[in-house]
């Protein structure tokens, strides 16, 4: 691989664009493929297969050829509501995973830069904050404040936008009350039951890093189910 290609791959990853690396295994020549961008002459005959790999987000050698395709997928957007202690560990865990965390917390004393270095915290109420973040069915929500004023609007947004994972921290009782409020707000049972509450898989631990681990484990598991 040419150093120049390597560097533009790194740049594209930084810019969060979706692309594939196409390598001719017989001579080691490689190029970057992007949607709506034309391939080099020698790769053009494989254009259909390359597009197919790209669409399926698949890596592999094209059948009966010496062409290897490696697809890069975008990181998964995870919105965390509540810049609390657990959120600090979620940020740590996500560093080795392909999750891109954004934290929303209207309470300035939680969302301080010192608690979350190198991390952009949106210091606004969820309704305002969601105007700044593009979300869709591939987005996840982790609600951690267990304060209805802050969590509920975020949960409603996530349900309306059909996030693939929605989890909310709080005891069984807290969650029952939350479900009741969502029902009154007009959400149906299927929507309400899709919320993971109490959040996380059962690990037994009660400390902040242990709860963060149980949440991340559930998130990874749900990501692969989709």
């Amino acid at each position, binding site marked *: *691989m*040419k*150093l120049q290609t*390597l*560097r533009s*791959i*790194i740049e594209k*990853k930084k810019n969060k664009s979706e692309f594939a690396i196409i*390598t001719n*295994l017989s*001579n*080691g020549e*490689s190029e970057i493929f992007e949607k709506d961008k034309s391939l080099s002459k020698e790769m053009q005959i494989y254009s259909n297969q390359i597009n197919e790999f790209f669409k399926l*987000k698949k*890596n*592999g*050698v094209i059948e009966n050829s010496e062409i*290897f395709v*490696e697809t*890069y*997928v975008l*990181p*998964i957007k995870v919105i965390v509501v509540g810049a609390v202690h657990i959120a600090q560990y979620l940020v740590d865990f996500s560093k*080795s*995973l*392909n999750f891109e965390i954004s934290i929303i917390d209207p309470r300035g004393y939680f969302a301080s830069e010192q608690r979350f270095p190198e991390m952009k915290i949106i210091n606004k109420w969820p309704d305002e904050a969601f105007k700044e973040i593009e979300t869709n069915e*591939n987005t996840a929500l982790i609600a951690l404040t267990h304060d209805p004023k802050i969590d509920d609007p975020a949960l409603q947004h996530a349900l309306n936008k059909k996030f*693939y994972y929605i989890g909310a921290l709080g005891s069984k009782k807290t969650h029952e009350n939350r479900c009741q409020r969502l029902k009154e707000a007009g959400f149906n049972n299927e929507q309400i039951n899709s919320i993971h509450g109490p959040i996380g898989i059962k690990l037994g631990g009660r400390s902040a890093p242990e709860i963060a681990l149980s949440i991340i484990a559930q998130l*990874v598991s749900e*990501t*692969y189910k*989709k």
Partner: protein
Amino acid sequence: MKNSFDEKILEEANDWVNANQKVVLATVIQTWGSSPRQVGSRMIVNEKGDFSGSVSGGCVESAVVRECISLIKDNKPCKRLEFKVSNESAWEVGLACGGEIAVYLEQVN
């Protein structure tokens, strides 16, 4: 939905190049049967034999490192390696898991 774990291996390769090291990328390009790491998994090796990342669960890394060092010495651009099931003789390089993998080596230049 497919979640790729971002191992930042290419970023590390770039750092090594910036530190004037010669770097070989080793990438899993095909697998048959049960293999520990999926297609696209990668490790990098420099001329001293330092390495980062993985192409198996530790089964074939030492052989890959040796091959990468010779690639740099012989100044060849690329090479394809295949690893099959190891037999019972001790110390032989192979995949104890019973799978087969093809690994592609390429120099960064």
